[in-house]
Structure formats: C-alpha cells, structure tokens
C-alpha cells in the first residue's frame, strides 16, 4: 500500500469574477470591446487562502479550527483536488474521500438505492463492492422502506443519513470531513466521542439544536443522549427549542440546563465553568454559537480551557 500524504506548498486561492449582473457574455464583451479599463467596482477579488504550507503524513489526524469565513472549507476543497490552486502546488498521494456537503449531489427523482449506488461510484467504490455493501449501508441509513422512494420526498435529515452512510462505508486512504453546512446527528456523535477522550476535570458540552431534521427531529435529538453519557459529560447546556427532547432524556443523569438561545448559553456557561474544564461547543450555524466561542476565546469567560468545534 502506498503511504498516503498531502503536501501543500505556497497555496493561494483567489476568487475572482464579475458580480452576477455582469457575468458571462456582458463582461466578456466589455473586456473585449473596451480598450480602457473596465470599471472594477463590478468585479470582485477575494483572497480566500494565501501562502498555505502544509504537510500531512500517513496516519496523522489533523483538525481545522476557525471562525466562519476563515477559509476552512476552501482549504479542504483544495486538499480534495476540487479547487485548483491559483498559485502554489498541491501533491496528493492516496485515494481521497471527501465528505463535504451532505445536502447536494442527489438525483432527486431516483430512489434512495440508486442514489447510494451513484454516490458510491463517485466516491471510488467499484460496482461490485457497492452491491456487496448495499445491505450494510441500507441498514446504517435506518431509512427502511423510504429507500424505495425517490429522494425528492426526503427530509434534509434523511439526505444527511443517506450520504453519511455511503461515505462511512468505505475505507479511504485520505478522509476529509467538512462540517460547515450544519450540525447533524452523525457529526454531533463524532465530536462528543472526541470530548470523551479529553483528559480533564470536567467535561461541559454546549450543544445547539440541529435544524432542518424534519419530522423525526425530536427522535434524532433524544438519540444524542447515549453519546453524551458515553462521553462522560458532567454538564450539558442545551440551546434551542428542538433540544427539549434531549433535555428531557438527560434529566437526572447529568447536570442539564436548557436555554433558548446563545446569550442564555453564555450565561449558563459562566455560572458553571471553572478552571480545568473542557468545553465543547457545537451546533448549527444558525444558532449563532460562534459568538459564544468568540467570547470564550477573548477571555470573557474568566477561566477554563475551551475546545471548540463548529
């Protein structure tokens, strides 16, 4: 087996172009016909990444942490060979499995089964391997009879389950995971597991509600109880209405505080956090928990070490 590696040298990514009203033929003609400089106000130029040097070797696990808009997803797309770098070089050894967007890239009118096959093929599985793993993947999606339905009838939570089941069924040499889109049961479980491995006095989990999970939302939230308990969480601050189901389930097992919003979460956190605690913050972007992380990082929380993952 080749030793997988990922090397980025001086990578820049610059997004350049015209604003939507000036796109295509119009801007092209303008550039061709007008010899004078075209008004640059209608053009944009964003330096998303600049001078990135990175070497990740076989067996390493690397986490990317940053605020919204920091360029995490862009960097991941460069590492996955989806965005060609504007400058610099990218060398990828090994088969890459990207897990970026769980909400797009479906054939809406085709059944869940067909979509599993298509995603499997696009992720590099052979047709035989897919057929072999089909029952296992199907079981993991927990979608049951819904797999026979065209996926346009699915709720967004069901899309995530389907995509996640396919992605996790393969053993790639390089796995890239982006969680930017939304919090989902799978990513919540994964980060809680990581929290369980941290060595510390107390573990505090600040969990924002997961949006857009459809009719089964309450169940998905309640199902998080198990990973929370397994991670030996001492105190949980649950944010948002949808979290009611989980709060109910955890009641009496751990110190639970159910708050309506990010401000409430900050207040609750200030009350319970003490030096030596590890705090996990996780939730959909829409909940605005990034504000809380910023406060914590700025030292507004008098004490405590915070491990944040958005």
């Amino acid at each position, binding site marked *: 087996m080749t030793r997988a590696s990922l090397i980025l040298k001086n990578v820049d990514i610059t*997004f350049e*172009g015209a604003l939507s009203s000036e*796109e*295509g*033929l119009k801007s*092209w003609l303008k550039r061709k016909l007008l010899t004078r400089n075209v008004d640059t106000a209608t053009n944009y130029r964003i330096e998303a990444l600049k001078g990135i040097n990175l070497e990740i070797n076989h067996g390493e696990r690397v986490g990317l942490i940053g605020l919204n808009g920091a360029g995490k997803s862009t960097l991941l*797309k460069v590492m*996955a*060979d*989806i*965005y*060609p770098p504007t400058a610099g070089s990218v060398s990828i050894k090994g088969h*890459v499995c*990207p897990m*970026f*967007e769980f909400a*797009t*890239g*479906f*054939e809406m*009118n*085709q059944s869940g089964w*067909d979509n599993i*096959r*298509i995603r499997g*093929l*696009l*992720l590099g599985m*052979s*047709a035989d391997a897919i057929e072999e793993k089909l029952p296992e993947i199907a079981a993991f999606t927990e979608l049951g009879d819904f797999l026979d339905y*065209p996926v346009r009838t699915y709720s967004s939570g069901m899309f995530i389950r389907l995509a996640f089941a396919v992605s996790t069924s393969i053993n790639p040499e390089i796995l890239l995971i982006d969680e930017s889109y939304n919090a989902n049961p799978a990513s919540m479980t994964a980060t809680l597991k990581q929290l369980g491995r941290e060595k510390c006095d107390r573990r505090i989990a600040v969990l924002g509600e997961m949006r857009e999970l459809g009719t089964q939302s309450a169940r998905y939230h309640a199902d998080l109880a198990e990973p929370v308990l397994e991670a030996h969480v001492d105190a949980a601050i649950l944010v948002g209405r949808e979290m009611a189901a989980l709060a109910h389930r955890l009641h009496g097992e751990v110190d639970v505080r159910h708050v309506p919003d990010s401000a409430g979460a900050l207040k609750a956190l200030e009350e319970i956090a003490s030096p030596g605690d590890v705090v996990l913050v996780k939730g959909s972007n829409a909940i605005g928990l990034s504000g809380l992380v910023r406060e914590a990082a700025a030292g507004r929380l008098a004490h405590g070490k915070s491990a944040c993952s958005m």
Partner: protein
Amino acid sequence: MTSVTRLFIDSTRALKMWRVWTYLGVQDIKAKFHRSFFGPLWIVLTTGFFVTGVGLIYGLLFGQPVHEFLPYLACGFALWGFIVASITDASATFVRAEGYIKQFSYPKQIYLLRTLISSVIVLLIGIAVVIPVQLFFNEITPLGWLYALPGLALLIMAALGHIAVSAYLGARFRDFPHAMAVMLQMMFFITPIMFPIKLLHEKGLGFIYQFNPLYYLIDVVRHPIIQGELALPENYLYAGVYVLATWVAALLVAYKLDSRVVFLL
C-alpha cells in the same frame, strides 16, 4: 504539471471509470422518462409522428416516392436529433453536475461521457425506428446497416467533440445554449434532412450542402442504411476532418476553462 498533461491524465482516468459514466448516463434516460407511461417509447413515437406527418406532405410537395422518402426522413431525423442534443442539451452538462463537481474530486470528463451515453441511447432508439419503416416498404438491406458502423463511429466522435465544447462554453456563457438553438434551427432548413440532395442539384444549389459539415456527418450513416452501400470515400474524409476540428476546438476550450469550471458553477 501543465494544464495539458493534467487534461490528458484526467481524460484517461475518466475513460477508465466507464462504470461511473455509463451508470449515470443510463440513469439519466430513466429519469427523463420517469413516471411516464410510454417511457423511452416516446422517442419512437416522436420520430414516428414526425415521419408520417412530414413525410406524407413533403413527399407530395417534392414529388418523392414514399417508399424511398420515409426511411430517408426517419433516419435523418434521428441523426439530426442526436447532433442537436450534442450541442444544446450538452451545454448543461457541467451545470447539471454542479452538486457532484463541487464535492467529488473526479475528473470532470466523466460528465461529458455521461452526456454522450444518454444521447447515444436516444440515437439508437430513434434510428431503430427506420427498421420497421424499411420493412414495411420492403426496402431493408441488412448489409447496409453494417456499412453504417464506420460512419456511426465518426458521428459519435464528433458528438463527443461537440459535447466537450458546449459543456465548457455553456458553463462560462449562459447565452450559449440559446444561441446554439437558434443557429441549429437555421441549419435544420439548409441541411438535407427533409429533402433529398438531388433536389438541390437540379436547382444548381449544391453548395448549400457541400459546405455544410453536418451534412457529411449525417450522410456517412444515412447513405449506407438507405442505399445499402458505403458512402462516398471523400465524405468519410470530410467527416473525419470535421471530427478532428471539433476535437481541437474541444482541447482549446478545455485548456482555457477546465480548471475554472468549478468556480463558474
């Protein structure tokens, strides 16, 4: 790595993944006729209605014997539909695959081949309509169908060139498919599909088809099927030159735009 070597590597990688693009192409056909009662039979029906309607009227108008004219028309109609699809429908190739292109790192060429597969399936069903028409008039020559194969290969290669050019330009310029639709509509009237070339000859208008590359693409497939013999050697040559031209154009366009496609979607 220069763009050209990268294009070459990507293309060979894409070809090797035939399982992926054949599957996607076949799925596209299934999706197109999803929940329709007649399904792909609609391709047959479209050709059938066109040929009967237009065939009877134009046959009378141009004074053509029906037993020769109807198979000619059916064949030309199916081939023309394929050429149109390889230019206008193909413009949406990358746009349609946006969800895939933005999250999987596979060579973009698989989406070109996917479009080719679904267009070829439609072509094969459409051209099969000629068989019952020929049988009905007792005009069929099985050997002619065999002779059509080299021409068919040229036509499909030209279509791949068309698809590549249209897919890249269609992603860059969203006016492209509309402009092409207009142009092809004009071409439809000057390409010998609804009328035989000897009519043009009689009126001294031979140049109308002689300078039309699409005529040669059609002729190298249609002539063997209808006449039961190979087309004129120079027609294969012209069709071949056109294939080369489309591929050079495709290479240029891909060279310019391949790395930018993901940002254009």
